[in-house]
């Protein structure tokens, strides 16, 4: 589904941040990417979702046989890529529900599916809201406006549940969550697991992985994947720290 080959990227006109990342993600798989602060995890996630401000100096990213890096952010989203932001932005004046409906219908339209009318949309919203234990009235506000840190993360997963992506990239969705919120968010992620979907979780901690068992764990350090393994690698990291795995 996703094939990253020898990806080198630097900040526009600046220093190199990704120094040859290669990663293959197949449908049905769950990958965890771990690594110290500043190792390039968010940069990688941003580049996959189409954030600008980076120079791709070498390498390629193929998604479903297409050159991902040549696609606009909206085309990637419509093709099924979803990034749960590490820092979701607040958008005063843009109503959450309205935003979500425009987003959902943009994707449906691009795929040739009929747009949802207000009634159908509302029904879907109700179902997913319950799943993520989100208050109704949060949806009547501006996007993320006045949300607590945990509510913002939950809202990301709620959006993911609504948009039903094929490849979800979750950037530290677990940080800042208390144990109950973590359980709810993990539940939301597990519900998305399916043979035709893939999930890439970026995290610092073992604890999300206790709830969402990954098939593969990778350690990113200074812009390179320095180790890959199964979920026992995460347990090892928890015990020894990054230094213990030679980072």
């Amino acid at each position: 589904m996703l094939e990253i080959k020898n990806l080198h990227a630097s900040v526009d006109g600046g220093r190199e941040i990704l120094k040859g990342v290669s990663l293959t993600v197949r449908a049905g798989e769950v990958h965890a990417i771990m690594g110290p602060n500043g190792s390039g995890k968010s940069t990688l996630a941003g580049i996959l979702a189409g954030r600008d401000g980076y120079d791709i100096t070498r390498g390629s990213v193929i998604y479903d046989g297409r050159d991902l890096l040549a696609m606009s952010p909206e085309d990637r989203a419509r093709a099924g890529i979803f990034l749960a932001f590490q820092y979701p932005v607040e958008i005063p004046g843009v109503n959450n529900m309205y935003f979500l409906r425009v987003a959902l219908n943009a994707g449906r339209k691009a795929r040739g599916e009929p747009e949802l009318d207000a009634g159908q949309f509302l029904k879907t919203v109700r179902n997913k809201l319950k799943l993520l234990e989100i208050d109704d009235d949060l949806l009547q506000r501006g996007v993320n406006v006045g949300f607590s840190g945990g509510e913002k993360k939950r809202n990301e997963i709620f959006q993911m549940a609504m948009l039903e992506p094929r490849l979800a990239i979750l950037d530290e969705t677990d940080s800042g969550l208390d144990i109950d919120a973590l359980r709810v968010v993990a539940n939301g992620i597990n519900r998305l697991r399916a043979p035709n979907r893939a999930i890439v979780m970026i995290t610092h901690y073992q604890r999300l992985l206790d709830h969402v068992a990954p098939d593969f764990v990778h350690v990113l350090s200074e812009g390179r994947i320095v180790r890959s393994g199964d979920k026992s690698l995460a347990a090892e990291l928890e015990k020894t720290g990054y230094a213990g795995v030679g980072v």
Partner: protein
Amino acid sequence: MAVKTEAAPYLDVFRPNAGEPAWLRDARAKARDAFVARGFPSRRDEAWRFTNLRPLADKPFEPGHGKLELKPGSLPKGAWFASMARTLIEKPEIARRAIGESDLAGGQPFASLNAAMFADGFVLALDEGVTLDPPVEIVHSAGDGSINLRNLIVLAPSSRATIVERYCGEGAYWTNTVTTVSVGAGASLTHVKVQDEGPEAIHFGMVRAALEPAATYRNFGLTLGANLSRQDVQVAHGIGSIVDLAGAYLQRGDQDTTNAVVVDHAAPGATTRELFKGVLDKRSHGAFLGTIRVREGAQKTDAKQTSRALLLSDRASVDTKPELEILADDVKCAHGAAVGDLDKDTLFYLRARGIGIDEARRMLIEAFVLEAFETVEQPELRGHLAARVRVWLEAA
């Protein structure tokens, strides 16, 4: 009598109307003399520094025509809502209040010209305690030439009203409106104006409002049209009165607009909130001039002014000039101004959810603009303004 060059053409077309009452003929003559002696405001005049009057000076307008339509809804007893022409005949004692000393003095040349030349306008007058609901509406569509409208809104104590003015038209014309507003003790007026003039038009609007104690005056302006436009709002507070001035101006092409607001706190305990939002695309230019004057003795004044503009193109520009003159000591006064482009991270967030870049930009601009109208109480009216903004955005 010395006549300024640019004013001369207007002197030539001035024809006193023999059918009018003596007081009006007298006032018109005085206002005309004041205008021709003074001429157009000069760009050395601080308040007119950013308004380019060349198009007006180069090509004087003949007196022109427009259609004034009043939509009264259902008027309660104690409410007068009629054209100025009719009010002059049937209620001259009310109509007289539309012309003031400053018209005769010439300090505001275009207001003096308006006093000399106006043929019509609207008048809304409410007796004490009368509530007007739903809003009344005025639509003016201009045809050609120069059109001077003289408007008057008088709210007696404890009355309430919402009034919506809309200006539109086709062709090259000049609309020049002067609106005198008086809000009685404890009365409340919501005054909405949508300036949607044709693309070749010139539009000037001047509002002078005087507030009595505990009066509330809310003024919302949406500027979309005209090639050159200017909106002046000048408010004199009463004791403990409340003023909410908000405006949004959306311009593109080579449009040019100025919002100039002056709020005078001569009485204590009054509150002013100002919020102006500009969206400037292509080669357009906007200016916001905001003066808040707090006189000696106006203690416990609470005033806040905010002006923000989005520049959507490298060639668009905006000038902002806040001016706080504070002579009392126990006051809260704040102002802030910012100019920028749409936030990149926010735009990316929307696109990362599948929303196309054009739609994402429209959503963000719309949200930015509509903040100015958040305090409009009637949801239908807010919706109407939002719809006008949408139309502008989608016309890009």
